């Protein structure tokens, strides 16, 4: 029997759980995103993409920022797991993973980033070749590679989407076990999660209309829904095993 909650149920649950906790979660999200934004701005100021070496140094620096942001993303997951489980976290809990299993978080984020980037490497190479030669011949293959690479990147990203929740739920697990469990629990549920992600597009439109200020409330709502999705997966897994 299908006992999984629908997208609407998960979203309604997230809205209810966030009542009275927006101050904390908005603070946590603002803190986390400001740090990442600061690092990206720093990278953008010093980036020099006019040469091949500069282009690849820029990609490398972006990769390191992505790696570091994993610690903050895992911290955000901790905040939202606390909220959805009825606890009251603090905004500073986004730094939780700086002191709890930071090595595993970095390995997981590295794996996730590599899995997302590898399918896009051909597109990056073709894009650079097009920019370097200034020839329109490269446009079509770049588009094809970007579309195929994008689809593969989303697929891997969905497979590994639950890694930080699993790490926080099972801190004794190794990175390999966490990745394996994430793939297992996401089997047959990738499209469900993708549908939930796409269902936030109208909210993104509202966020853009509000000059991006609205994202301070949209991101917590989205993250709480993803956390409920994880809890729903685990609850059903436990029911099946029982």
């Amino acid at each position, binding site marked *: 029997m299908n006992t999984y909650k629908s997208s609407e149920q998960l979203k*309604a*649950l997230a*809205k*209810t759980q*966030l*009542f*009275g906790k*927006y101050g904390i979660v908005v603070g946590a999200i603002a803190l986390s995103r400001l740090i990442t934004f600061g690092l990206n701005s720093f990278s953008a100021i010093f980036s020099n993409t006019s040469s091949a070496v500069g282009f690849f140094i820029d990609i490398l620096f972006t990769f390191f920022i992505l790696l570091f942001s994993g610690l903050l993303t895992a911290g955000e997951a901790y905040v939202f797991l606390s909220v959805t489980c009825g606890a009251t976290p603090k905004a500073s809990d986004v730094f939780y993973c700086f002191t709890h299993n930071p090595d595993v978080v970095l390995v997981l984020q590295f794996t996730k980033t590599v899995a997302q980037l590898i399918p896009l490497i051909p597109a990056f190479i073709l894009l650079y070749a097009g920019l370097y030669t200034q020839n329109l011949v490269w446009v079509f293959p770049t588009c094809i590679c970007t579309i195929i690479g994008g689809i593969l990147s989303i697929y891997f990203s969905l497979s590994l989407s639950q890694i930080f929740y699993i790490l926080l739920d099972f801190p004794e697990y190794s990175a390999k076990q966490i990745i394996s469990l994430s793939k297992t629990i996401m089997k047959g549920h990738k499209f469900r999660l993708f549908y939930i992600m796409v269902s936030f597009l109208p*909210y993104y439109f*509202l*966020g853009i*209309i*509000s*000059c991006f*200020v*609205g994202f301070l*409330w*949209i991101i917590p*709502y989205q993250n709480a829904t993803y956390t409920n999705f994880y809890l729903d997966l685990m609850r059903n897994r436990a029911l099946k095993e029982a």
Partner: protein
Amino acid sequence: MDNNNMNQPNQYPDFPYAQNIPVKKTPADSLISMSYLFGICAILSAVTMTIYFPFILGGISIIFALLSKGMEKNLAKKAKIGIACSIVGLVLNVCIVVGSVYTVLTNEEMFNQFNTMYEQIYGESFTDMYEDAYGTEFPFS
């Protein structure tokens, strides 16, 4: 979930005007109130031609109204009014912006005034700046 505590047992069952006792505010109520307030502010800021504020206030008002729904089937009446006010504010603002740009571009006197103001602020008229940037004459001048 009953966000308005309507199904809670009455605290004073024997009190003849019990139904008039104000119910305790819930967090959803604060979101609804903020949506209502921001919706009205969106209209007011659109009327005062502040350009950016109606977008910010209207957008946030609609987000708050939608988030206030929780597990209820329908939006609260005040949240619906908040959304309606926001939409009115946003549409009004877009009309004002489009109307202003159209008037400046089609009315020669207004365009000259705009060019003079632009020169006072940036030290170069708008048409000169356009010609420097794109190498062609500004099409509406």
